[in-house]
């Protein structure tokens, strides 16, 4: 199982702040997870199909989309950051 967090504009678009998910075993990296989430359709499709800039973190560290995760990890998706 994975804990997945969504932030800012993305959180508002999909209407979910946090969820626990269990994707199929074939989904092992962030690219795979994003494709699986996009397949939910609607806002998920719009946000995760690659047309909007998105950043990803695993266990609170920024990662590239090719990064792999393991059971129990904390995953986060969010738009490019705009602090400071």
């Amino acid at each position, binding site marked *: 199982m994975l804990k997945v967090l969504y932030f800012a*504009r993305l959180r508002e678009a999909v209407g979910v702040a946090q969820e626990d998910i269990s994707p199929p075993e074939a989904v092992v990296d962030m690219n795979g997870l994003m494709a699986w989430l996009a397949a939910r359709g609607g806002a998920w499709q719009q946000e995760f199909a690659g047309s909007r800039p998105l950043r990803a*973190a695993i266990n*609170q560290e920024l990662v590239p989309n090719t990064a792999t995760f393991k059971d129990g990890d904390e995953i*986060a998706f969010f738009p*490019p*950051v*705009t602090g*400071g």
Partner: protein
Amino acid sequence: MAVRVQTEDFDAGAEITRLRLSRPDTGAVAAFIGQVRDLSEGADISTMTLEHYPGMTEKALERIIQQAGERWDIFDALVIHRIGELKPLDQIVLVLVSGAHRDEAFAACEFIMDYLKTEAPFWKKEQTSTGERWVEARASDDEARQRWMEKH
């Protein structure tokens, strides 16, 4: 080296005084203060809401400060970043760096700001007279960070 993420305002002057007096061989303190502007792309801002990723924010800021400390000969550094609802002219962020000499303090302070802008998980939402919108990341911020990878 310290990081604070808080809803409360901060006292930049008191923090500067504390930092510069903490070591008697300190000769220089470089500081940056960011505040909410009253204008965004021509629209008046009534409030700005700062969202963040609790846990990751602190980790990201601590790593940025640590990298600055490895790269320059500095004595101490402080980052305070506010979250929650802010108004125009409210302070958003304070970055302080102390050291023996000004060049290292300036460079480390600017480095911390450039990395904070591109790696620390904060997001701004503006409420303006024409509605609300999420602030878009600026390409110039990525470029500002990029130059630190070319130097040294």
